[in-house]
Structure formats: structure tokens, C-alpha cells
């Protein structure tokens, strides 16, 4: 892998700090302005790696690595660094909590406005609309902040600071609960008639073997039986109480997350104080983009770190169970649809671009579905052949989106990256005001992250190598898209540098983009930390080589060589040590064992060759 996560992340940290902490004060905002989502993304560029990768620890100042300390120098000394970050988190939490103590998850400046709207001014109710992006990122930020504060606490003695840490932890925890409640109210199940637009589109997507629609519906019903049954367990929040409709034979469904709180979603009863639960306005239909955002965030709730550090309260664990149920269901649903094998030569996923039930189609949807499939494959510890098929989809997506192919005259495929793919947020204009839109533009970093995690799963060195090569290519592409001017050097994103037809030049960093690149690098660090691939044939080879070496070595001993003088004794002792080492590492690092065995055999052969020379000399 040519991606060097440590080096790259340090460079990014340096750039983030240079930009965000210019005169001893945290400065919020970037290309999308300052809002609950962008500000959290900005913080997570630092807090993410700091809490997820051991080498980037800063919450235990004693353990901070030298190079890490060096790039964070503008924040101050060893203990100032975590303090300044806690202060920034504190500021964020204050900024996004209203007077009544209710956490704010508003989209504010994050979303755009539909181009065909006459009056583009957003109503306050629209600006304040809580959205999935904010819930999701708040989940990640709160978990990181709680863990960070708790770990940092161990190094602190002063009462005033301890109180502050407790306070930040308590408010982050409240925000976490509120975000979980929010996500439970954004989940939705869209049930539609087989003959509706949605129904026909779903059948078309799944049908890769020209079966009749009737047959496909039957097969789908069978395939999704377990998920339908599990949906009965969804009893709180949005998407509940639909079991009867689901059972009707002429109905199909989709599940996942909408763009915000679903219209008429009931409030969640909870013992925890989460403030007021706002009314939603999102249409009750899953969006694949927001589904991926929610799935990625929710995953952190069941991570090893969350469990080991005991980051969740009892009430949060209860809510987490609710989210896990929806996570499982959604994951399986999309994975089943994407790799549905109804006798065709290809999976629906391989039929690029993916068509949604809204009949919209784009490579972007294919990437999102692949993204869910990769997560599902991780969970199932899938076979290399399946992983490889997804890998080929990713390769083709890189190709079609002009990451690994050049843009030719008149080619518009690059527009997926810049300006991006626009989705309408339906329901946002029902109470007046223009319709909200969201422009997805994180194609490259998302593709990088999924490619690297897929590579990490592959056991076959050749397949893995192919995925890593792809990752390197995507990284090179991303690297070229970094902003170049003095103040923002090392942050993202300047697509004009790789797509000549795109002429817009940005002067502010996009935290949305930079945070996603950081996520990709974190995945890379994770893959590199895991033990190297082990091949059985290599282990076998090492065993044979070492057996031969062992045998020849024993023969030298039997010949009485050690009593033949200091030189030979020293050599044999050294070989013995190398042999022991080779055997010891054979299982974990067979390649290295082979290399050691080769050296031992060569050196043993020098004795044999020398003796042969005796014969040659004709004594």
C-alpha cells in the first residue's frame, strides 16, 4: 500500500490545526459554513484518529508520540493539547444546545436549495430541521468526546479541570442519547404496491435473468421473509406497526433511513433527558445515501472501544439495541437485494448503475449499495470469490467515475465528483419554503475507504494486491485534489485540479470531504495493524526448508564440528539461534521464516562445499 496513513494523517492534522487554530482560538466553519454537522466534521478530523488509532493517542499526554506532539505544537505543550481540544468540544456543545437544554441537530447552512425554486429563502422551520447527518455525526463525536474526556481524566488532578471534564462528558452523553433517539425517529419502511413505480423499479433492479415479474415478486418475498418477520420487532419510533401491510402478497418494501425525522414520527419514551423531540418533515422513504451515513455511525455503538471503555449508560444501551435491530435489518435487506441470486449471471449490484425505486440511477447508488454489501461481508466473513466480485464492482466504479480513467472531451462522468450528484429532500417544502437539496460529492473518499476495507478482508494475496493497487490509485487522485494555497494546504477539496473541464475554484476547505478522507486513512491504519496474510503453501515451504536445515545442522553436530575450533563453534551457535527463531515465527510470518531458512541452508552448505574441495584436491 502506497498510502502511508501515519504520515498523511499527521500532515492533515497539521493543516487542520493551522487552519482551525490561527490565533489561539478555535475557528469554526469551512465551505459549508458553520453548522452542527460541519463543525463536528472539523473536530472529528482530529478527534477521530486520536481516539481510534493507538499511535495518535493524545488523551493520555504521557503517551503522546513525539511526531504527534510536534504537529499539535500550536495548541501548546503536552497537557495543553488535550485541554484545548476539550475546550473546542465544550464550545461545540454549548453552541448546539438551545436555552432549554435541548441539543440542536439542525441542518442550517448544510443543505442547498432546489435550483427551480422561485424564492430561495429558507424558512426558519426548514433551517432548524433536525437531520440524519447531524444525528449520525453527533453520535461519532459524542462517543469520541466521552472516551477522550474519560481517558484524559486519569492524568488530571486539578479540581477545576476535573469538573470541566465531567461537565463536558455529561453534556456529550446527553447529546449522544438525543442523537440515538433522533436516529430511531428517522428510520423508515416504505411499503409499496408491486405494480407501482417503486415496485416495478425494484423488480427490474433485482431481475437479472429475465424472469417474469410475478416470479420475481415470489422469490423476493421468500428472500426477505426473515427481514419481514424481524420488522415486527420494530415497535418504537418511526417505521413501527407496519407488520400487517408487509404480509400482503402484492406488497414490496424498502427499509433504511430518511433524510431527517420522518413526518409524524412518534416521540420516543425515554427515562433520559433529551429535551424536546421536534416534529419532522421528511417523507417516509429511505434514502440510500442517508442510510449509509446512519449505518456507518451506528456501527460505532457496538465497537470494541465502546464496550471496553463502557461509554454507554444503561438507557443508551437500551436505545442502542433498538438501533442495532434496525442496523441488522437494513444491512441484510440491502445486501440481500444487491447480491440476490435468482439464476442470473450477475448480481443486481453488478448491473451498474444501480437504479433506485424512484427510477433515478447513478454510479453513486452503486457505490452506496456496495458500501453496505462490504460491511455485510465483513460481518459474515465472506469467501474470497464473493469479495472479489464486489472488488470488481469497485474497480469499475473507479473507472466509470474517471478516477482511474482520464476525462475525455465532452465527457460528463466526472460530474459525479464535482459538483456532485444532487438529491431532493422530499417533504422539506410541504409546509412552505423552497425544497431542500443535498449534493453528494464524497465519491472518491468513500470508494477509497470501502476498497481498503475490502482489501483487508481478502485472503488471496493476488486479489488483495489488486485491491491495494486500486486504493493507491484512488489515493493518488485524492492527493491531487488537495487545496494548494498557503493557508489551507493539505485540506480538501479542489476538484478543478484533476478535472480540467470543471472550472470552479474553491477557497475554503470542505470539512465534509476532509473528514471522509480521514476516515479512509483510519481504515488503512486499521488494515495495516492487523497481522499479515498467511499462506498455507508458504508455511508448508518454510516447514520443509527448516526440516532440511534442522537435519543438516544435526549432522554437523554429529560430525563433532563444534569441537573443531572457535570459528566453527561460533558459526554453529549463531545458526542454532537463527533456526530457533525461524521455527518460532513460521506460523505467523512464514515468508520471513523461509528467508531465514534460506540463509541457514546456504551457510551450512559452505561447510559441505569446503569438504568437497578436500576431495577435489586429491588427498
Amino acid at each position, binding site marked *: 500500500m502506497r498510502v502511508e496513513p501515519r504520515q498523511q494523517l499527521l500532515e492533515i492534522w497539521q493543516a487542520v490545526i493551522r487552519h482551525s487554530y490561527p490565533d489561539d482560538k478555535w475557528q469554526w466553519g469551512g465551505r459549508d459554513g458553520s453548522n452542527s454537522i460541519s463543525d463536528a466534521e472539523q473536530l472529528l478530523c482530529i478527534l477521530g484518529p486520536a481516539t481510534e488509532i493507538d499511535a495518535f493517542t493524545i488523551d493520555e499526554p504521557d503517551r503522546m508520540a513525539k511526531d504527534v506532539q510536534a504537529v499539535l505544537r500550536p495548541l501548546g505543550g503536552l497537557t495543553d493539547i488535550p485541554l484545548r481540544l476539550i475546550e473546542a468540544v465544550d464550545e461545540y456543545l454549548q453552541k448546539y444546545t438551545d436555552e432549554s437544554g435541548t441539543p440542536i441537530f439542525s441542518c442550517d447552512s448544510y443543505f442547498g436549495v432546489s435550483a427551480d425554486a422561485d424564492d430561495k429563502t429558507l424558512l426558519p422551520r426548514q433551517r432548524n430541521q433536525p437531520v440524519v447527518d447531524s444525528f449520525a455525526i453527533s453520535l461519532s463525536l459524542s462517543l469520541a468526546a466521552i472516551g477522550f474526556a474519560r481517558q484524559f481524566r486519569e492524568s488530571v*488532578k486539578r479540581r477545576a479541570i476535573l469538573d470541566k471534564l465531567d461537565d463536558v462528558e455529561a453534556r456529550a452523553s446527553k447529546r449522544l442519547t438525543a442523537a440515538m433517539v433522533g436516529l430511531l425517529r428517522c428510520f423508515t419502511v416504505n411499503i409499496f404496491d408491486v405494480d407501482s413505480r417503486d415496485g416495478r423499479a425494484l423488480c427490474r433492479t433485482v431481475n437479472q435473468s429475465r424472469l417474469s415479474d410475478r416470479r420475481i415478486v415470489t422469490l423476493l418475498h421468500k428472500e426477505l421473509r426473515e427481514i419481514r418477520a424481524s420488522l415486527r420487532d420494530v415497535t418504537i419510533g418511526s417505521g413501527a406497526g407496519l407488520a400487517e401491510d408487509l404480509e400482503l402478497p402484492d406488497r414490496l418494501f424498502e427499509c433504511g433511513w430518511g433524510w431527517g425525522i420522518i413526518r409524524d414520527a412518534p416521540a420516543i419514551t425515554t427515562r433520559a433527558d433529551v429535551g424536546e423531540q421536534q416534529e419532522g418533515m421528511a417523507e417516509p422513504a429511505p434514502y440510500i445515501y442517508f442510510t449509509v451515513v446512519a449505518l456507518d455511525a451506528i456501527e460505532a455503538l457496538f465497537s470494541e472501544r465502546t464496550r471496553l471503555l463502557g461509554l454507554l449508560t444503561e438507557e443508551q444501551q437500551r436505545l442502542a439495541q433498538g438501533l442495532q435491530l434496525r442496523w441488522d435489518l437494513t444491512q441484510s435487506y440491502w445486501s440481500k437485494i444487491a447480491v440476490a441470486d435468482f439464476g442470473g449471471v450477475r448480481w443486481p449490484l453488478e448491473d451498474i448503475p444501480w437504479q433506485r425505486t424512484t427510477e433515478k440511477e447513478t454510479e453513486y447508488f452503486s457505490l452506496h449499495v456496495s458500501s453496505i454489501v462490504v460491511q455485510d461481508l465483513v460481518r459474515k466473513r465472506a469467501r474470497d470469490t464473493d469479495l472479489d466480485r464486489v472488488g470488481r464492482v469497485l474497480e469499475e466504479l473507479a473507472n466509470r467515475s474517471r478516477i482511474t480513467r482520464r476525462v475525455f472531451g465532452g465527457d460528463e462522468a466526472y460530474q459525479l465528483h464535482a459538483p456532485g450528484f444532487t438529491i431532493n429532500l422530499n417533504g422539506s417544502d410541504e409546509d412552505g419554503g423552497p425544497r431542500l437539496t443535498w449534493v453528494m460529492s464524497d465519491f472518491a473518499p468513500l470508494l477509497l475507504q470501502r476498497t481498503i476495507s475490502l482489501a483487508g478482508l481478502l485472503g488471496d494475496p493476488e486479489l488483495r494486491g489488486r485491491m491495494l493497487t486500486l486504493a493507491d490509485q484512488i489515493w493518488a487522485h485524492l492527493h491531487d485534489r488537495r487545496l494548494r494555497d498557503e493557508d489551507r494546504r493539505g485540506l480538501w477539496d479542489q476538484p478543478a485540479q484533476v478535472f480540467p473541464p470543471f472550472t470552479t475554484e474553491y477557497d475554503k476547505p470542505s470539512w465534509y470531504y476532509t473528514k471522509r478522507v480521514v476516515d479512509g486513512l483510519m481504515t488503512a491504519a486499521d488494515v495495516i495493524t492487523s497481522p499479515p496474510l498467511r499462506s498455507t503453501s508458504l508455511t508448508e515451504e518454510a516447514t520443509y526448508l527448516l526440516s532440511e536445515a534442522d537435519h543438516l545442522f544435526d549432522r554437523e553436530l554429529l560430525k563433532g564440528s563444534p569441537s573443531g575450533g572457535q570459528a566453527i563453534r561460533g558459526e554453529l551457535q549463531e545458526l542454532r539461534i537463527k533456526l530457533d527463531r525461524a521455527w518460532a515465527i513460521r506460523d505467523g510470518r512464514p515468508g520471513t521464516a523461509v528467508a531465514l531458512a534460506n540463509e541457514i541452508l546456504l551457510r551450512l552448505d559452505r561447510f559441505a562445499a569446503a569438504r568437497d574441495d578436500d576431495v577435489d584436491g586429491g588427498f
Partner: protein
Amino acid sequence: MLIFATSDKGGTGRSVTSGNMAYRCALSGKHVCYVDFDFGSPTAGAVFNIDGAQHGVTGGGLHSYLLGDTADPERIDIFSRADRLSLRDRPPGSGRLVLLPGDSGGGEFPSSRELVRRCATLFDELNSEFEIVLVDLSAGRSYAAQMVLAAARERPEIPARWLVFHRWTQQHIIAASSLVYGDRGILETGVALGHDREQLLGSLRFIRTAVVEPDAQGLTAEQTAWVNDCNAALQGLARDRGAGKLAVLGSVPLDPVLQWREQLITNRDLTVSRIANPQTAEAFEELARLLTDDAAWETI
């Protein structure tokens, strides 16, 4: 300000490091006095190259003062008395550097009320005259340490800081930590004498000596990898024993000049004969600066 320098084991380079710190402090313009309370072996004279005081003075030193035999312990002005050309003549802009030697053959003696009173009076006088009063205690749990803890308790208005020197090895870390936190250690003794534990701990820092830096020259790649690992293990040990980075004031690299010649590193050693590593002198300078840098002594 009073600075107490102590260590659990001998051979940590406590005297030579604190001597160099005192010297660097004086060069930076502060008036400094170095008080040799290492009663068993008063060798500060050797560090400063004072002829006739290599192992303390004969009569009139600190022993004599504490035992009431003399009212004015002997004072030696380093910049005029040092038997080393490069130390002679106080450089322009620097402060005074005065050594209060012990008596040769004095030995340790148990602390008593009377001794504590005299010791506190001495601190009064020195503190009003010098900006830095560096008191070099002997290694381990000593009567001298007990005495200065008691004297410091009687003079709460004089700011006091503690330096615990240890080499960067497993045994030295354990020993230094036990000197601070262990039975009859500084904290326990201090608390018994009426000190506030947290306050005393807050005014105490470790100094690591003879540290082999992983990026030191002359190490092979394999040695560097190994030293890095050892270093990480030692960091962990130090952290567990309350001597982690947050409790450290600074460290001094392993230096051949210090090893072979336990004396001050002068600017001549750096520029003319070039036998000393500039990093070592920089480390002393940094430590000297940190002695009075309140930010370095803040606890979080």
C-alpha cells in the same frame, strides 16, 4: 526559590546535572548558590573544580554551621576560585554563582530541632540574597532530606521545588518512584512533617539522566528499533510508577564528557575543544530555564 535535588541511587549524575543547571542559571543572569547537603560525600567542589574543596572543606563548611560550630559557613565564588580557565571570570551579563561546600569527613547526622532551626535560618539568608538556592541532597532516604523537609515546612513563604534524578533504566525508575511514593519516601515523610501531599507532589518533578535517545547517532537500524521498544516499555513503567512524562521536568542525554569528566560543560567545551555534545548543553540550559518557568510546574 529553593530547589532540592535528590535521587534514590548513587551514580545518577545528580550532582553533575544540578551543578550544570546552576551554572546555566548563572549564565542566564540569575544569582545562584549551590548548597552541598550531601553530607556523606560532599563532592560538589569537584564538579566546580575548586582546589582544596574537592571533597569538602576542612572546617567551616555546612556541617560546622549546622552543628553550631560556625555562624557563617564558608562561601566559594566559583567564577573567581574555579581551578579551570574556562570557568574563570564571570561572563558579562551573568549572575553570581556561589558554592556552599560541606566539611570533608563530616558524615551524616540525625536531624534535630536545633538543626532544623539553623537550616531554616540559612534558607532565609540565602533566599534573600540569591534567586536560586540549589540544595544538593545525598542519594536515598537521608537525614538531610528529612531536615530540609522540616525546614521548608517552617518557611512556607519561600517557594520550594523538588527534583528527583534518576537514570533511564528499569531499576532506577522503580527506585526513584519508591523514593517519592514509597515507605518513608519524600511524600510520606513530608506529610508526617505537616506538608500537604498534593502540594508537595505538585512541586516535585523527575529528571531523567544519561538517556539514550532512539535517534542518537551511532546506533544501527536494529539497535534503534530495539531502543524504541525499550523506551516505550520504560515509558509505560514510569507512567505506572507516577514518574511519567507529565511528572518529568526534562532529561539529559548520555554524554561522554559527563561520563569521563564529571564536571561542568562550559562553552569552551562546545566551541573550542568541541568535546561535548551541544545537545547536552542545550538540555542543561532548558532545565535551567524550566526551573523558574511556572507553566512547567503547573499541575492539571
